[in-house]
């Protein structure tokens, strides 16, 4: 078992981006939603996969992908099973 404290998700804020963000020119509401599964569940990761799977990939690596999408990381909530990234735009 693990304590409630360890279970509590952990928030990190990207102050550099979040402090000066101006969304004056953002206008379009409806989002695009992409969901890519590489395995049916976390228990069924292929043997070649590093511990933690995608969750072990560093935020700075995701930044490269998000640059192509035109998004910046504002903050991250990390929990045991999921990392939730709040993004600009």
């Amino acid at each position, binding site marked *: 078992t693990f304590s409630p404290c360890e279970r509590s998700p952990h928030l990190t804020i990207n102050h*550099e981006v979040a402090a000066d963000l101006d969304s004056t020119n953002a206008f379009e509401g409806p*989002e695009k*939603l992409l969901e890519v599964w590489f395995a*049916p569940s976390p*228990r069924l990761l292929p043997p070649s996969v590093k511990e933690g799977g995608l969750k072990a990939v*560093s935020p700075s690596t995701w930044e490269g992908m998000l640059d192509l999408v035109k998004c910046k990381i*504002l903050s991250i909530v990390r929990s*045991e099973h*999921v990392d939730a990234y709040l993004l600009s735009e």
Partner: protein
Amino acid sequence: SSMFVFPHKLILKTCGTTTLLLGLRRLLRIAAVDAGFPFHNATSLDDVRVAATPYRVFYSRKNFLFPHRQRGPHSSWKDEVKFLDDTFENGSAYMVGRMNADHWYLYMTSPVGNTLTPPLTPSSSNGGSPTRSSKIPTGIITFPGAPEEQADETLEILMMDLDPELAKQFYLEQASAVADERVPAQAREARRAAHDSLGDIDGQAFVTDADHVDVFANSKDLDGAAPNAEQADIEARTTEGHALGTVVSDMCGLSQVYPKSAYPDSRIDAYLFTPCGFSANGVVPAPVPGPDGKCDKLDHYWTVHVTPEPVCSYASFETNVPGGQNGRATSEVINHVVSIFKPGRFTMTLFQAKKPADDDSLLVAPIKHMDTIKGYRRMDRIVHDFDDYYLIFRYYERE
């Protein structure tokens, strides 16, 4: 915009004129190179084309308000489908709802069973003989124990024509006024001073909230450098966008969609944009493990994005927190969310994974309950029965 990263899947939801699909190839490459997922389109990781083989892919969106302003492959559904068809084998595209009103698009690939390619096991993959096609195969790896060990359910509510008075909550000017009333002047001044000092500290980029203290030396330490103890007394203050986002989340009622009383370990990360607009992510940890330390459940998420301008007002809510059981029923969640924005019209989609021994009774219950939304008339009711998922689509207008 928001991104949710699980060990086995990634969800990316982006707003505005973002170019989501242009990040797809990089995403698949990261999954192969950095996470170690199997690939079948190259002979080695050194190949610049290398891309992990997905188990399944979903891409969806509502019809755009200003499609001509979208960039890259997003200027039309036809272009998006072509982009996805050029990327993946075995994809299927759908349009759900009224063509001359609010409708919704879906592109999906399915695991083995729908593909023509013989299945592989995870251990037989990684390199080997690459496919002749430049496309990336999907769903060709079989997983012992699949399909999913637990229920997979995603609810999405897309709301248009928001109540103008309620939409004002999501403007910086109004939120600041509310915050000024709620936060004592002394605390406000301390927060402002801390904010200013953070701007003067060379290279300091990442600050966490009061509950968990981490200060990172510079933006390159996004991955988690050691905290700097000297700065530990100032990082309790967050940026204005996050601080006001928290105020708005509390005031508008979003914090109560999954209340602390029922979900004590849940956590909300909210941001209010300048001059307006709002985003929030919520993480709802799985139930406490049993005496054996094992927990079969995963943490869940919910996310909200709001564009409050009258000319294009819009809000979305998405959650994969399972309805019912000891938590809130799906119909309760829908009613709660709709009451926050009071939209003129909204669509609701529910993706529900079938279970191995599924019978249709599992489908009937949520459909009946979701039909009735107080103050709204249901205009459309559409059910798609896919191989391994039900897709339930509803469209409502205010009475």
